[in-house]
């Protein structure tokens, strides 16, 4: 039985699945239900001076019938009184001593940070998460991403928190920066025990095309929100991996951004996350989604021979390299399994219009299985991506007789490159 015990910067939990600081972690009753459903931890909805929210608050991107492929919000931090929040944190921690209860904080002055940190720890917090990420509303008041985008401010406030805290401090980073690495390093210089990323991405989720108003609409106006959900996963994976592979960094990472199922979870772990935070999928489907996350991850670990999470954390990081180190002589071509092909010709049109015009219908009309002109196929994957049948199209390596050569090796050592394909 694989052990899912999790330790992220000194914050421990029975499994790596934490609720992210967001509406599903708004109250003690919710978080306790989530723990009963199987969640290993929760980052409490950000505490600060309670705010007043707008209605409406959420918007979604729907893609070919999939609702909420992307999601955004213009909700702010907690709107509940600090007294109630701290009482519920105390109650939750008392009832669930082994689960991780991390308190997210966002305030302005050094004194406010000191006060709230003390009260959080007194209530039983296992760790703190400094919300330097929100890209809407709070940043207009000098908090959230306004802090996260400025490494010096990030470092300074982090150092205050670390000074005041007797529990681990995670800094939650905003993705609304051109390069995440300096911001992670700033948190490290401030003394953080780890970082959480990504927070949401500054976004306009859509426009009400009949009213000419952005969504989510608040009377006749709206504002940019924070983008999240499955659609942001690739951006999150990149930022997590960028820090995980940075030799000067080396802090634990709590991965966030579009984690919707165990496969996403495995990817974040392989790219260096030691805990995983989830919000959108819970908002769309409820706490119960954690069941599949847990047993999917356990089965994956069994299949791959991992007994503990630390054996798999960061395992894919060595494969993340620069383009100049990729082997230009590695060659693949697409192969179609005629027995599996259903004749939809999606690969034909995709290759014809979007790639290198090397997949052709058979003219005699006897079969709808297309033919691949391997002399023209550049091995781009597009056909495999559009094919609706599992494993019908596979990308097969071709032995072209050329020894491996990267662009860097070609430039510095003159290593020979194979002739280009599809470049006429």
């Amino acid at each position, binding site marked *: 039985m694989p052990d899912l015990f999790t330790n992220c910067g000194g914050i421990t939990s029975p499994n790596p699945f934490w609720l992210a600081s967001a509406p599903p972690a708004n109250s003690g009753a919710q978080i306790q239900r989530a723990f009963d459903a199987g969640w290993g931890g929760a980052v409490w909805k950000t505490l600060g001076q309670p705010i007043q929210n707008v209605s409406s608050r959420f918007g979604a991107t729907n893609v*070919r*019938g999939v609702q909420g492929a992307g999601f955004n919000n213009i909700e702010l931090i907690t709107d509940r009184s600090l007294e109630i929040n701290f009482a519920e944190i105390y109650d939750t921690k008392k009832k669930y001593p082994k689960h991780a209860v991390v308190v997210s904080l966002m305030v302005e002055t050094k004194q406010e940070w000191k006060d709230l940190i003390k009260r959080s720890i007194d209530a039983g917090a296992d760790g703190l998460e400094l919300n330097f990420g929100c890209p809407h509303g709070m940043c207009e008041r000098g908090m959230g991403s306004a802090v996260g985008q400025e490494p010096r401010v990030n470092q300074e406030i982090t150092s205050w928190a670390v000074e005041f805290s007797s529990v681990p401090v995670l800094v939650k980073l905003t993705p609304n920066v051109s390069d995440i690495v300096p911001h992670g390093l700033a948190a490290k210089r401030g003394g953080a025990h780890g970082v959480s990323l990504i927070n949401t991405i500054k976004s306009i989720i859509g426009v009400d095309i009949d009213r000419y108003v952005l969504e989510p609409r608040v009377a006749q106006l709206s504002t940019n929100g924070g983008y999240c959900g499955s659609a942001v996963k690739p951006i999150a994976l990149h930022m997590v991996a960028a820090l995980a592979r940075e030799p000067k960094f080396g802090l634990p990472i709590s991965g966030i951004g579009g984690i919707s199922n165990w496969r996403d979870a495995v990817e974040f772990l392989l790219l260096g996350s030691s805990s995983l935070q989830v919000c959108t999928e819970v908002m769309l489907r409820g706490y119960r989604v954690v069941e599949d996350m847990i047993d999917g991850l356990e089965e994956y670990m069994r299949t791959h021979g991992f007994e503990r999470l630390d054996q798999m954390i960061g395992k894919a990081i060595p494969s993340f390299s620069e383009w100049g180190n990729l082997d230009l002589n590695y060659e693949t071509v697409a192969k179609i399994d005629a027995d599996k092909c*259903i004749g939809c*010709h999606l690969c034909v049109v995709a290759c014809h219009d979007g790639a290198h015009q090397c997949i052709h219908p058979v003219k005699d009309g006897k079969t709808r299985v297309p033919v691949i002109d391997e002399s023209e196929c550049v091995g781009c994957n597009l056909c495999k991506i559009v094919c609706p*049948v599992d494993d019908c199209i596979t990308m097969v390596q071709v032995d072209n007789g050329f020894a491996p050569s990267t662009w860097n090796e070609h430039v510095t050592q003159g290593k020979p490159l194979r002739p280009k394909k599809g470049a006429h």
Partner: protein
Amino acid sequence: MTDKLGDNRSEEIFEDFKGEYTREQAVVEANRCLYCADAPCVQACPTHIEIPQFIRKIATGNVKGSARTIFESNILGMSCARVCPVEVLCAGDCVYNHMGMPPIQIGKLQRFSTDHAFDAGWRFFEAGPDSGKSVGLIGAGPASLACAHELRREGHSVTIYEKRAEVGGLNTTGVAPYKMKADRSVEEAEWVLGIGGVEVKTGVTIGQDVTFEALENSHDALFLGAGLGADTAMRIPGEQLEGVHGAVAWIEKMKLAKVPASARTCVVVGGGNTAIDAVREAGGLGIRRVVMVYRGAQEKMSGYRHEWRAAQVEGAEAQWHALPVAFEGDGKVERVRCVKLDDAKKPIPGSEFVIDAELVLIAIGQSKLGEMLATLQGVELDRGRIVADEHGRTGRKGLFAGGDCKNGGKEVVNAAAEGKAAARAIHDYLMGGTNA
């Protein structure tokens, strides 16, 4: 014209066999479509509707564009959505069948878009500028309607001659009411003719009220879309008894008026789609026992399997390898005397049996209308069918044909395709292009 149909018609008690989609259902199904390229469904459709395109437009909420795509290829797309045997056409060729998954419900999606167009009163096409040419169309069924619409888009003036009081042809008089009722067909015909500039002369029988030659003289071209003739009789004793009907005639009465519904037992003779329709209709009217009597094996019947399966589900029975030899009764039919046939369709001695039947519907075919035209120079007949090429061109200059009178009795969608193809050929002919 809809008000010409009487109230309280027998067909009115039928409910749709395939229900209509709500918007949500349509969008979910539309999103399931793989959007194939060179799609097999399009190739399987006689009118080559760009099915993946119209389905994609449903998914994106562009229902008007979806309807336009359908009508651009097939102006009778509304009725075809309901009456097409999609199981053996578009949906039968859906690639999902090769994945072991249910094919896309193309008919129901097409109905969603086209019903929307009708309900919203959308129109998509305008008549072309007046060409000064005139075309006469014989019959007001699907072939002629499709032909007339296409001719009007080119600006030719069109006159339709119809022997019945109602337009729409078999769509009005023959379609199973659980697929489409007569009023919807008439409504469609009116919508198609709404392009304007079409004169419809109903109650006109060619050769009786006006001669063929007179029509030829008053038009620059003629299109023959006259359909098929009366039910073929069995020519066996008792056929004159009350309660024995040709199936097509009985169905027409059931759709346009009222048929007696007191019978408790019914025999339908035949194994084609008209026979199966009659079986399901008799059952739907409340006749408790309906038996189809077919002379061949079940596998050999020309009726669609999916239709017969539905009939069986509804409780229909069958006698295979059987042939009625007499209808018996005292003034009214009471029973059908049958004989079993061997593989060579020869009666097996001593195999006679009797089925109780207070209603008998004979669905063994319809006469072809071609005989009347056989004397015309250049017109060739093949077993009663008018011989014409894929463009509807007959051997007689200026005479074109399409629909059942040409193809011997196929689907509405075939008639729509042939009518439109003929219109293209007529246009070429009128504008001095290819000869007929």
